Structure formats: C-alpha cells, structure tokens
C-alpha cells in the first residue's frame, strides 16, 4: 500500500512532467493520430491488405503486385504528417522519460522504470 507522502510526491512529479512541452506535444500528436480520418482509413486498408498478404503467402499465391500494394500503403502511412508528428513526439517523450528515470534511479541505486514497469510477456 502506497503511503500518502509517497503519493503526494508522485503527484507533484506527475504535475510538472504533465505540464512540460514535450508531454503536451505528445498528447496533441497522439490525439491527432488516433482521430484523423485519413490515418484511420489507411490503418484499415493496411490491416485488410496485410491479412490478405498472409493468406496468399500461406497458399503460395502471393504476387509482386500484392507486395507492392502493401509497401505503398505502409510508405504512405509512415510519411503522413500526422504519423511523422506522432512518431517524433513519442521519441522526444521517451527521451524525456528516460532522463527523469535516470534522475530517480540515481538516488535509488537501481533502475526505477525497469523495476516498476509491468512484467512483459513474450
């Protein structure tokens, strides 16, 4: 059970972190990425093409045209300004979080994030 002093210190840290430029930019970029109709359309198209690709690969009927179509959608998706903004914002956020984690871990004597992160499944 987390005691109140610890929770208050965590809340203060969250408040400052949450108001930083990098976190705000990430939240805006994430919101755009999740709500942009063109991105949503491309994601659906990619999912359909990818599942058809796997099915054809399994049957041995995959053509160069199938590969090209999938690559084109992937390329367009990756180059879309909303995707680019989101990817950049995520990278910047990760760097900020790693720096904060470094500052916390330095005082603890072990890696805070590695210890506190949810257990990964393979």
């Amino acid at each position, binding site marked *: *059970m*987390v*005691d109140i*002093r*610890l*929770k*208050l*210190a*965590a*809340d*203060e*840290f*969250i*408040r*400052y*972190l*949450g108001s*930083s430029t990098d*976190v705000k930019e*990430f*939240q805006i970029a994430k919101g755009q990425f999740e709500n942009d109709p063109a991105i949503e359309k491309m994601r659906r198209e990619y999912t359909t093409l990818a599942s058809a690709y796997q099915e054809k690969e399994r049957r041995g009927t995959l053509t160069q045209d199938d590969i090209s179509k999938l690559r084109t959608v992937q390329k367009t998706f990756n180059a879309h300004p909303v995707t680019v903004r989101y990817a950049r914002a995520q990278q910047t*956020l*990760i*760097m*900020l*979080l*790693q*720096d*904060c*984690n*470094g*500052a*916390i*871990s*330095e*005082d*603890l004597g072990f*890696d*805070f*994030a*590695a*210890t*506190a*992160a*949810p257990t*990964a499944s*393979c």
Partner: protein
Amino acid sequence: MQSTNQIEEKVEPRTLEASKRFARAIVESPQFQRFEEASRRLRDDPAAQQLLSDFQQAQQLQQMMQSWGGTPTQEAERLDQAKQQMLANATLRQYFESQDEIVLILKELNVHMTEKLGFDFAGLAKPAGGCC
C-alpha cells in the same frame, strides 16, 4: 545511466527537482528502508551470500541443460534443494520479502502515474531489452 549534470541540461529544472523529491520520498519510505537494511545484512552475511550463489549456479546449470534439450532430473533436484536451503535462511528470506515489498510499491506507483499521465511511465522509460 546518465549523470545528474547530463540530465540537468535536457530536463526542465522544476521537473527535475520534482523527480528528485519523488526519488527522495521513495528512499525515505519504510519499505525502501527495510530493503536497504535487508541488503546491508545480506552484504554482511557470507553464509547467506554462499547459499544465494549456490542457488544461482544450480539455476544456470538447469537452464543450460534445458537449452541443450536434456532431461535434467538431477539438476532439478539440486535446484530444488538449493532453493529450500536459501529460503530457510533468515537473512535471505528477509531480503526477498523486502525486495518483493519495494517492487510492489514501485509497481503501484507506476500504475498511479500511468492513470494520471495517460501513458505508461516505466514502460516507456525502462531500458530497451530483449524478450526472455
């Protein structure tokens, strides 16, 4: 791990200070203090260190045998025996209990932070590592 000086150049001072106050609150928590005390006892107890080392060796041997496709019955017995001896030791038991306790607190804190921030702080900040 980066030094404070390197971090200071990149993180806003108030965020950095808040992260330091957060770290200090963890360090001063009863759970962390118990873990520190248990770690100190383990460092001062060569017999407990030996039991831990025996267990780790038995564990490595069994994993190696398994990766070679062997049927490590003997190794499994040895590992089980090493584990029993390790858990019967008060210093080690206390160390593992306090470790579980602090890990639990840190995970709870991360859940709280994740809920408030809208992203998994520790999941994103942890060092990249291989799976399994």
